[in-house]
């Protein structure tokens, strides 16, 4: 109706610029309108005695409006618009032919629906007026002669790369627009890069997106993501975080397999109020070695796509133990029970140095008779060989300044973890506040004016930070965890440790005299972490709880696991993070440090890659000039399966270091995931580039849409408006109204 009345579409009116083509001034128009309305008034004034004043007024208005409209038409109102010239511009149409487009319902796939809509709708019109190129987009971009020559469904959707490639191919010609017909399920890596959006916009070509497929799939259950550490310590219990997409609420059964063995089976409750939910899962302790874990959801009844119900992850359980040095200045119960809690833990070797008498130290957990034979390490190399240090009731004066500095730098530069315990000669009472170690601690130790260590029983409470920390997690269930902490027996003593520093986290607290004090505090310091546990009385948890209660052991294991888990090793093999790892190019980086944990750029580094299909390849690497001590490697992983990257490094002193990394190459899994239409991504592509998002039902608007955008070769022209039906109809209406009124008034 609008277009009928006003001659042009609403989009044209919006985009166009209104002006008067006659060239006469607007003042003249205004004066003419005033003159004409005046003449009309004087003409009607003669009849003032015969006609009522109100009737005269109405008649005057009607006559003035008619005259004004005629004057407006004489001034030649027009719209100035920029339009794409069809025959001079190219149009690229990208049709997504990846496997996800085969998904459908009611006997037709998404691709079939798209083809039908294009062929019935605007394709012919566009091809007549634009130089049109049609591409098939999946793993790569292929030009098509016609829609009858579609390739086989691609096993990946690299829409991001395809869009950039299509823009580059048409770079030498005026490109009016790119039309992307797709479900938006991009699983290439490039579109996840923020720089990709900037690059897309820089081409200044509108991309119109046509969304195919349902936005929600209520019948489908999908295991969207599994977050799991790639390596762990022997004897440790790892947690995985699962993200599920589910179109409706209910429940799902999750199973985890290690090879062919079922290791976990768990029921997951799915909320109906959200399409996605996250679930935490505890894996049992696994033997040292590489484990290919398969996480699988049992399908719902009627589910069509079963391939997105499972994901694989590699978990490397380290054979080597992490080493923790525990130094105590006096025999005490806390020492005994910490050692007992970590006894037989395959992932951690607790080496302890205990001053039993004024002139004797007792060593436990040592690797050889030479270890710690001279007491606390005096040089960095010896100290840095440990992954974490625990200092108990041990006076700072037992060490010299050099050793204090080494201890501070153990955290800051080496990236190790330091835990200080309470004691009559610990923390402030041990003089640690006056050493360089104090700067590394997460608390400001009080001045040593009076003793701060007290043998008074107090109750421990979990803080807000503690609720979220893996150190204090005694149960995966939040409420159960809180209950277990509420029921914990009192500790046997505490020490005033001072105020926590900004940026630190207080995980446990205790209450005394109506006030809360920090008990377990942690902070990041340099490359490492430091902790203060302001008690030496957690042993009461062990002695006051039943012998089969594992809370004391769990707490200490988790505390020490956290401490060693974050510490780097001298040689590390880092492989790329994989999710839907269909890409065949893999990369690995080897980080190398000397005994003082300084980057080692001049080592002889060799990597051997062994994989399926008998792959065995060895190569020598050079240090990256931009990252000393980092050695980079790429390799082809064409076959599906597990690849081992064995790195060996020999430094100039002949010392040899070795470490393994692992990569899982999966084949043809990416397309099975996220099969619902990614409308949000398609809308964003359109919005960022100045295009529009259309549903399949609105395809007939496409030709006008393309022409209305200012891309490619555009011409400016004027659209005359004086002959709008609106003007004629308005004049007719006004005059007819005046006639009818006169008839009624009896004054023809």
């Amino acid at each position, binding site marked *: 109706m609008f277009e009928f009345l006003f001659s042009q579409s609403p989009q044209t009116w919006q985009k166009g610029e209104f002006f008067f083509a006659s060239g006469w001034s607007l003042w003249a128009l205004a004066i003419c309108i005033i003159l004409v309305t005046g003449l009309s008034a004087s003409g009607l004034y003669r009849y003032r005695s015969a006609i009522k004043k109100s009737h005269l007024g109405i008649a005057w208005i009607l006559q003035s409006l008619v005259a004004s409209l005629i004057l407006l038409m004489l001034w030649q109102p027009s719209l100035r618009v920029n339009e794409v010239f069809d025959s001079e511009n190219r149009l690229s149409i990208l049709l997504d032919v990846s496997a996800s487009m085969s998904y459908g319902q009611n006997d037709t796939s998404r691709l079939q629906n798209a083809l039908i809509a294009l062929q019935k709708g605007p394709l012919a019109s566009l091809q007549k007026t634009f130089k049109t190129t049609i591409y098939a987009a999946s793993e790569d971009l292929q030009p098509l002669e016609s829609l009858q020559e579609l390739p086989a469904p691609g096993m990946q959707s690299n829409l991001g790369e395809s869009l950039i490639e299509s823009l580059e191919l048409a770079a030498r010609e005026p490109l009016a627009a790119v039309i992307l017909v797709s479900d938006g399920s991009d699983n290439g890596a490039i579109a996840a890069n923020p720089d990709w959006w900037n690059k897309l916009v820089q081409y200044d070509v509108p991309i119109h997106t046509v969304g195919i497929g349902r936005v929600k799939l209520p019948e489908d259950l999908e295991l969207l993501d599994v977050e799991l550490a790639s390596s762990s310590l022997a004897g440790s219990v790892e947690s995985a975080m699962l993200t599920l997409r589910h179109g409706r609420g209910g429940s799902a059964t999750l199973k985890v397999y290690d090879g062919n063995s079922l290791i976990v089976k768990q029921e997951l409750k799915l909320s109906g109020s959200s399409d996605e939910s996250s679930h935490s899962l505890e894996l049992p302790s696994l033997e040292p070695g590489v484990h290919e874990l398969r996480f699988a959801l049992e399908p719902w009844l009627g589910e069509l796509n079963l391939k997105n119900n499972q994901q694989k992850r590699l978990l490397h359980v380290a054979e080597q133990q992490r080493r923790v040095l525990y130094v105590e200045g006096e*025999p005490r119960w806390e020492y005994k029970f910490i050692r007992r809690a970590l006894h037989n833990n395959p992932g951690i070797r607790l080496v302890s140095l205990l001053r039993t008498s004024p002139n004797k130290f007792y060593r436990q957990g040592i690797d050889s008779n030479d270890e710690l034979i001279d007491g606390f390490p005096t040089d960095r190399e010896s100290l840095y060989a440990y992954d974490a240090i625990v200092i108990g009731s041990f006076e700072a004066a037992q060490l010299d300044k050099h050793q204090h500095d080494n201890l501070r730098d153990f955290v800051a530069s080496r990236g190790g973890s330091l835990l200080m315990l309470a004691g009559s000669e610990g923390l402030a009472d041990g003089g640690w506040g006056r050493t360089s170690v104090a700067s590394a601690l997460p608390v400001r130790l009080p001045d040593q004016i009076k003793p701060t260590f007290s043998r008074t029983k107090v109750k421990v409470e979990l803080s807000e930070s503690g609720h979220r920390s893996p150190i204090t997690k005694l149960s995966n269930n939040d409420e159960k965890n809180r209950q277990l902490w509420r029921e914990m027996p009192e500790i046997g003593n505490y020490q005033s440790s001072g105020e926590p520093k900004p940026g630190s986290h207080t995980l446990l607290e205790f209450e005394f005299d109506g006030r809360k004090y920090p008990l377990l505090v942690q902070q990041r310091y340099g490359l490492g972490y430091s902790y203060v546990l302001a008690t030496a009385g957690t*042993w009461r948890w062990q002695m006051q709880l039943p012998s089969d209660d594992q809370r004391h052991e769990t707490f200490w294991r988790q505390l020490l696991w956290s401490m060693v888990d974050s510490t780097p090793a001298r040689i590390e093999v880092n492989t790329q993070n994989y999710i839907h790892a269909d890409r065949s190019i893999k990369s690995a980086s080897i980080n190398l440090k000397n005994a003082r944990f300084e980057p080692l750029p001049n080592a002889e580094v060799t990597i051997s890659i062994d994989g399926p299909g008998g792959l065995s390849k060895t190569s020598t690497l050079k240090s990256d000039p931009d990252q000393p001590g980092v050695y980079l490697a790429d390799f082809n992983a064409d076959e599906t399966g597990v690849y081992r990257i064995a790195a060996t490094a020999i430094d100039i002193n002949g010392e040899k270091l070795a470490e393994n990394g692992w990569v899982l190459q999966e084949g043809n899994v990416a397309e099975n995931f996220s099969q619902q239409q990614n409308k949000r991504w398609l809308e964003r592509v359109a919005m960022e580039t100045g295009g529009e998002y259309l549903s399949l039902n609105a395809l007939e608007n496409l030709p006008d849409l393309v022409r209305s955008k200012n891309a490619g070769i555009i011409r400016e022209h004027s659209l005359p408006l004086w002959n709008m039906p609106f003007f004629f109809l308005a004049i007719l209406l006004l005059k007819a109204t005046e006639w009818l009124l006169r008839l009624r008034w009896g004054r023809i």
Partner: protein
Amino acid sequence: MRFVFWLIVATCCVAIARAQSVTSPDFYSGWSRISDAKHEFSFTRLMYSDAGYSDWPRWQADWPEAETHFLQGLERLTRIDTDPEGRLIRLNDPDLFDYPWIYAVEVGSLHVSETEAANLREYLLRGGFLMVDDFHGPWQWQNFEDAMKQVFPERPVVELTDDDEIFHVLYDLDERKQIPGLRALRMGRTWEEGGNLPYWRGIMDDEGRVMVAINFNMDMGDAWEHADWPEYPEPYSALAYRFGVNYIVYAMTH
């Protein structure tokens, strides 16, 4: 006849009065039985029932001088923060689990009820340590063993060997001799009740750690108690001190 009757009555009255006097809480008011520990280590002596085997409480043997003397040595020879006074405790005392080291003497007379046996089992499995001392001869061994069978029916008593860490944790106790009681020494020997040879035995936990250190056919308590007597040979006292120190340091490190 009347005389005999009244003699029996009088004897009973004396016995009852004496029993009450040694068991009334006020008797040990000088000893902190139940209180917050102000030191890391307390020498905690087990008060036990001997089921009428004896006419006086056997747990009192050498008390309190044994620990009074021994604790001075412990304080001087180690870095352990030591309570200079010992403590007394029963197996059904709720504070038992606050003292991870306990000492029981003359356990040849030890009698434990079912509840006490269960408590002792829990105590040891949680990490507690029991040192037993001063019992001799096959009859007393049998009685002690019967009591421990109530606590750990399935765990055997084993001989501690020269390599066991408990003998090397602070002092190297390679040469171990029978430590005699004073009474035996006065009879010109080191043994009593037919216990000619000394045995160091133990009951282990699942990780091979000593939970119960058994000193059979020897009397360390006497050696500590009489450390300041010229009549009692110093080498025995010195050895007994070393054993005691080792047991405590072992208990605090394993």
